[in-house]
Every structure is written in structure tokens, then in C-alpha cells.
């Protein structure tokens, strides 16, 4: 039906006003339009977080239904309201992913108009709205921005956080202060405590993500101490390799872009793996989107090492424990390298790389 409206929602400051706007619009539209409120919920692989996030989302959607009834009062029968969680089977990462699940939902139900909450930003990171708007309109949908006033605070940087985050941030700040100060005098202890309190008080909701579980943190640190020497050895070994390549008169390089899906999730492991890949000479992480790593490799042997997956196994060991370390190599899981192609198709990898970059642009 023409008058149906699709509204992606998350817990933003202007959500209430957006819902009011959409409700009014639905009432003024001819016929009995259906208002679809959808909550794009990214899949999280740490199960505990997922269930609470889903529960929060359900609650929010229930609240929206109540709001619509409130706003319409006696006219409530002029619109139908549907709510849904979408995207929960996928890991939503960039604006494109959000646009995909939203368009899919719209296509299934024949919805032509999307109304966006101007503060819609489920990830709380880089601006999502302008690219999302672009993607949705290029998918053939009418996109309207709900004309609601924004409060002065633009992006809410804060996330829900508990006492654990505060304590961890306070302790690390205090320790850093004392190390840089270099003494344990009363003055330093006092000013350090004050500074650390201020810093932690201001930033505890911003810096850390998720609940801090001290036992698992301790285990991770312990396994990290095993990982560091391994990484250092890899770095040194591979640095000699790159020194040889760079100083060689004929410069025997064969750069190529490799893509693979790493078997790591959440931010910290992905960051660690990306940084380790970059530090190990011959490979450079160009882009990480979801679990999809785009790696630029300098030489053939560096590529071989990468696809053997030693680093990935090590990172899994650090973050998920020893049993998780045994896993098929990226090569066996079907990484795209362009290596399996025949030499006649030598230009193919370049095109492949160009395609990757086109997606990012």
C-alpha cells in the first residue's frame, strides 16, 4: 500500500518526537496505512549481551506502540502498527548493512517510504545517517527525514556502563599518572587520585564497552603474555625478510590484495588481529568490515604465512582460550587471493581490488 511507512528505530533522544511525527502522518494519510517500526539489531556472538540487547529492543518497540496509541487517541483505528526486530541473524556493521536489511524488509511488504529519525545511529560511532540515506534512496525508496528538533547534544557518546568500567578506568589512569609522575609522594598520590577521579568520572561511559569481567580479563592478560613473545619473534623474523626485499637491487615484490573472513568477532580481538597482521611485515590490513579482512600483501611468502593462519590461531587463543585455537586455516575456509588463478588471468586480482575499494568509497 502506498501510504505505508517504514521507520527504523533505536534508542535515540529524538525517537519520541519522530514517533509522534510518524503517527500524525499516518493519521493524515488516506486509507488505513500501516506504520512499521523496525529495530535493526546486529548479531552479537557473545550470547549474554545478545539476549539483553534483544530484550531491550523488544521493550522499546512495545513502548513505541503505546506512544502511537497515546498520540492518536481516538483516531487510533486509522492506522495499523507493526513492529519487528530485523537483521538479528546478521552482523550489521556499516551503513550498507543497515540499508540492506531495511530495504529487504520494505521490499517484502511493498513499503515505498522510509522515515528516518535524525538521530538514528544504532552504532553510536561515525555518522551513519547520510550514507544510509544515500543507500536507501539508491535502492528506490523514498526517504524522509522526520522534521524534529534536535537537542544540542548531537551524538550521544555514552554507552551503558557499570561500576566495573569506572574502577578499571580509574585504576589505569591512576597508574599511568603515577608512572609519568615518577614518585609516590603524598602530593602525587593526592593529585593523581583527583585527576583519575575526574577522568574516570567524565569518560567511564565512553571508553570501555561491555561489562568488565575481572577473571576473564586476567586470563586474557595471562594468555596475552604468551602471545607477545610469539608476536615479537614473528615481527623480527619478518622484518629481516622485508629488509632483504627492500634492499635487494631488483626489488622482488609481488603486491596483491587478499581477502578473507577472520574467525574473530567483537572489537578487541579484531583490532588485535588487524594490528598483528599489520606489524608482521609483508602484510598490511587495509580494511576490516564485519569480520571481512582486506589485507594488502607485499610478497608471495608473506601471503602464504597469512593464509596459514598462525596469527589468527594465536589471537583466538588469547581471547577465546586454547580449545578455540584449533581451527581451519583461512585458505581452507576459502580466502580470495587471486593466487589460484592462472597466470593468464594476471590482471584479475587488480580488478578484484578495485571492486573492494569501490565498495568502500
Amino acid at each position, binding site marked *: 500500500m502506498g501510504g505505508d511507512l517504514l521507520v527504523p528505530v533505536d534508542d535515540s533522544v529524538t525517537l519520541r518526537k519522530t514517533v509522534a511525527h510518524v503517527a500524525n502522518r499516518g493519521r493524515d494519510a488516506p486509507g488505513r496505512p500501516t506504520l512499521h517500526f523496525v529495530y535493526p539489531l546486529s548479531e552479537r556472538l557473545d550470547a549474554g549481551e545478545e539476549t539483553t540487547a534483544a530484550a531491550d529492543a523488544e521493550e522499546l518497540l512495545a513502548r513505541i506502540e503505546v506512544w502511537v496509541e497515546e498520540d492518536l487517541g481516538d483516531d487510533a483505528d486509522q492506522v495499523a502498527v507493526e513492529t519487528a526486530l530485523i537483521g538479528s541473524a546478521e552482523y550489521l556493521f556499516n551503513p550498507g548493512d543497515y540499508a540492506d536489511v531495511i530495504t529487504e524488509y520494505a521490499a517484502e511488504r511493498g513499503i515505498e517510504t522510509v522515515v528516518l529519525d535524525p538521530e538514528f545511529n544504532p552504532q553510536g560511532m561515525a555518522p551513519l545517517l547520510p550514507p544510509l540515506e544515500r543507500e536507501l534512496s539508491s535502492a528506490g525508496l523514498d526517504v524522509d527525514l522526520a522534521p524534529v528538533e534536535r537537542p544540542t547534544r548531537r551524538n550521544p557518546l555514552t554507552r551503558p556502563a557499570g561500576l566495573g568500567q569506572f574502577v578499571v578506568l580509574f585504576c589505569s589512569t591512576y597508574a599511568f599518572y603515577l*608512572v*609519568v609522575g*615518577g*614518585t609516590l609522594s603524598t602530593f602525587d598520590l593526592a593529585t593523581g587520585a583527583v585527576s583519575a577521579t575526574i577522568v574516570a568520572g567524565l569518560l567511564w561511559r565512553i571508553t570501555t564497552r561491555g561489562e568488565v569481567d575481572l577473571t576473564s580479563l586476567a586470563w586474557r592478560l595471562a594468555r596475552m603474555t604468551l602471545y607477545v613473545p610469539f608476536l615479537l619473534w614473528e*615481527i*623480527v623474523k*619478518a*622484518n629481516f625478510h*622485508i*629488509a632483504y626485499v*627492500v*634492499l635487494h637491487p631488483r*626489488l622482488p*615484490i*609481488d*603486491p*596483491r*590484495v587478499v581477502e578473507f573472513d577472520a574467525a574473530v568477532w567483537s572489537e578487541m580481538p579484531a*583490532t588485535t588481529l*588487524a*594490528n*598483528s597482521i*599489520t*606489524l*608482521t*611485515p*609483508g*602484510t*598490511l*590490513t*587495509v*580494511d576490516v568490515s564485519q569480520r571481512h579482512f*582486506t589485507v*594488502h600483501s*607485499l610478497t608471495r611468502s608473506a601471503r602464504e604465512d597469512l593464509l596459514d593462519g598462525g596469527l589468527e590461531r594465536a589471537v583466538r587463543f588469547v581471547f577465546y582460550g586454547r580449545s578455540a585455537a584449533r581451527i581451519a586455516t583461512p585458505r581452507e575456509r576459502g580466502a580470495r587471493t587471486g593466487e589460484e588463478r592462472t597466470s593468464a588471468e*594476471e*590482471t584479475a*586480482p*587488480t580488478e578484484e*581490488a*578495485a571492486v*573492494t*575499494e*569501490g565498495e*568502500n*568509497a
Partner: protein
Amino acid sequence: MTPQEIAVAVLVAGGAFFALVAAVALLRLPDIYTRTHGASKSDTLGAGLALAAVALTFGAEISTVKAALLILFMFLTNPTAAHAIARAAADQGIDPWTVDEEGESE
């Protein structure tokens, strides 16, 4: 020469060597991605070695901890910066150089 002097000399020389490798990589390699390889890794290892020499010179005191912090910091930030720069280049649509164009390089 005392063992400490030898160790410091070896570390500093190693650091300078890898810094040189990074510089040569920056000058010789054909495109932004390959240059980033050289700069991000060799420079990081070079800096790490030289800072280890610094830590060794100070012996057991708070400055050693600071030097160690500096090393840790280098190893965390340099690859991140390199990654950010490479990604910026990719986002701007700069194509990676491949062997096919060898004729025009060098």
C-alpha cells in the same frame, strides 16, 4: 667495552638499520600501500630496538618503565595509524600497484 655498552651498541645499531630500511622502503617502493608496509613495520621495530637501548641505559628506575611504555605505545599505535592511512587511501580509490606494471616502475 662492558657488556652493557655492547648491548646498547647492538640495539642502537639495529634500530638505526631498520629505520634506514624504512626510509629506503619509503623511497623505493612503488605505491602508497607498499610504502606503508615499510614505514609501519620496519620503523616500529627500529624504534622499538632503539627505545630498548634507552631502557637499558637507564637501568632500574622509573625512566625504564617510561621507555617500556613508549615501546608498548609504538607497537600499538604505529600499525593502527598505518591501517588508518591505508584505509583512507583505499577509500579514495587509489589502486594498488601490481607486478603487471613493472615496466614503468624503477
